């Protein structure tokens, strides 16, 4: 059981927005799509939803194409938010619920639960336009998850939110995952993907430049970082062959290593020269991997 994206290409005119993309996304996990603006994330989502037709290739959800016969099992939070500004919150959520195959009663009950969870019960009968942007976003999120979809697509769910609301939505995403929903989630923020996703796909100009399990990607990358806090001048470490670069930061120095075999030697060498208050081996961040792969700064 999975979402199988087989050799998908989508042209807009002569320009390929997605190029020869093949992904096999297992059920019941959070899967991240990473990439800069214009990398093809939203196009990929629209292809999965069937809003756009692929120029080439097929997409199968549990072995079947996604169309209006199984769209009730899918939830979608578009990047461009869209709700009825003039309609009361609960009324329009019931409408969206019915369009996903719920009865009025089912929808009403679910909406009450979610409004309570997001702390906005008192807005149920207010017009949407009277709500703050963060609260509107929560309503949009409810419209995507209220029918407990099997497959949930979240396009940039946290953009434009304050940290408190980001945490609230993150925990809601985790809750949906625990309930067994397969979640596809796009972001241009590496740290959100690192925190939530087990697997990911890094898109650049419509092509996947990295794909797979997050830990495996980092392990395969091979390179690690040493974080050292010390009064010693660390420039001498460049004599070690496995040291790739030395980056001084305000409160510490980051030593990029090609492998982690001679860590003990480095530690001994530094200690012999003076006091060390912090010494740790860290995984590389996605951002570093991205920069290395794409050969340019990301944000």
């Amino acid at each position, binding site marked *: 059981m999975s979402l199988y994206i087989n050799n998908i290409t989508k042209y807009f005119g002569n320009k390929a927005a997605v190029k020869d993309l093949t992904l096999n996304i297992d059920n019941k996990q959070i899967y991240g799509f990473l990439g800069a603006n214009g990398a093809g994330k939203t196009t990929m989502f629209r292809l999965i939803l069937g809003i756009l037709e692929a120029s080439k290739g097929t997409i199968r959800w549990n072995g079947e194409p996604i169309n209006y016969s199984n769209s009730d099992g899918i939830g979608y939070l578009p990047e461009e938010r869209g709700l009825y*500004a003039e309609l009361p919150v609960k009324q329009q959520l019931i409408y969206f619920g019915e*369009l996903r195959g719920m009865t009025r009663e089912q929808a009403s009950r679910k909406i009450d639960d979610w409004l309570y969870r997001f702390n906005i019960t008192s807005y149920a009968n207010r017009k949407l336009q009277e709500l703050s942007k963060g609260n509107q976003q929560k309503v949009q999120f409810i*419209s995507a998850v209220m029918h407990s979809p099997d497959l949930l697509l979240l396009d940039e769910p946290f953009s434009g939110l304050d940290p408190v609301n980001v945490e609230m939505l993150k925990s809601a995403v985790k809750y949906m995952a625990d309930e067994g929903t397969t979640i596809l989630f796009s972001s241009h923020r590496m740290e959100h993907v690192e925190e939530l996703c087990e697997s990911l796909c890094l898109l650049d100009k419509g092509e996947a430049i990295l794909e797979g399990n997050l830990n495996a990607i980092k392990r395969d990358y091979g390179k690690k970082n040493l974080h050292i806090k010390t009064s010693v001048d660390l420039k001498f470490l460049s004599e070690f062959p496995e040291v790739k670069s030395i980056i001084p930061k305000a409160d510490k120095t980051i030593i990029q290593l090609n492998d982690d075999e001679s860590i003990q030697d480095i530690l001994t060498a530094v200690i012999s020269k003076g006091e060390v208050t912090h010494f740790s081996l860290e995984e590389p961040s996605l951002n570093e991997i991205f920069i290395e792969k794409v050969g340019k700064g990301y944000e």
Partner: protein
Amino acid sequence: MNKFMTIFKHTFLTNLKKKSFIITTIVSMVLIVLLFNLPPLLEKLSDDKSYTIGVVDQTHEIYSDMKSELSLYEKIELKSFASEDSAQKAYNDGDIYGYVIVKLNANNFIEAEYKAENIVAFELSANIEQSLSTIQFHRIAKELNLSSAEINSLFTPVKLTKTPLGEDAKSESDIALSYVIVYILLIAIYFGVIMYGNMVAMEVAKEKSSRIMEILVSSVNPITQMFGKILGISLLGILQISLMFLIGFFSLKSNSGTFTFDALTLDFSNIPLSLILYGVLFYLLGYLFYATLAAMLGSLVSRIEDMQQTIGILNFVMVAAFLVSIFGLTNPDALVIKISSYIPFFTPMIMFMRIGMTNIHFLEIAIGILIMIVSIIASSIFAAKVYKGGVLLYGKSNSLKDIRKALELK
């Protein structure tokens, strides 16, 4: 089917509850009541004060005749003056509204001059002229020594009876009644189709500009969506139009059920039901055809402000169809009318007009209906395709190019 009903109900109810809808309905109903009660109302409002007109009769033989002729009109009172100066003085004092100087010219014909504050009160001068003409006629008849029997024979009108030879040709009063009903229904079709069609386009454009469309398109088939909206609005339209016809009907009934146009009295209890039913049928066909195309155009614009410009082409065609059908009312058998009644945009109004005004064969009506049904199916399939792609199209709109782009996107 369930989702269709959901969208249908949603469209109908949210629009029904809109303030703008409620206000327009009430205002139009009030206007209709006023319109049908206008003649009695105007009568009540018009002044019934009488005008005193001075007469300076220089012939000394016409004044008494004038007085008896003009006694027919309650509004006019005459007063004799010996000279223009005394009449002018009375006018200056405000005793009279104006005065007439009557004299005879060299050929012994009556000549008169009417002077008054203003000559806007057209009825006054017309009455005076009429009375003087009658007097002149009698003077000449007298000179010619005609007897009163001879005078009467001069006035005998020619009797013309009209007999239609065509099979089930409409009688004169039938035609007059048809004319009025067809006219009213043509206006109703024209306004109804444009108004509610625009409403559909507006609904779609609003959902697109607020980006709700992407969610809708991902969960509901565009054809279901489009027809949910189109039929939701059409129910709204039927409700509104029925309310207006109902209130019009009762206003008419309270006015004794007849309406007088000059000499022709129309009895609305004789309205042929089939004509009304054809009117409703062609309204619905025209609306469905127009609304599918309007929904398509609505899906192409990114901002509501661009809506009017985009749908302008469609409205322009409707105006043309309306004008042709009005021209056809007096020339229903013209070739151009016959031809245009088979062109989809024109069929609803022009075919309906032909049904009302001529003895059209049922086969021709059936062909017209068939043409409309085929056009509606074709336009909905085409519109649904554009609709799905159009939803994702943002930016400056340029309808024709956009249609192509939207089809490619899909």
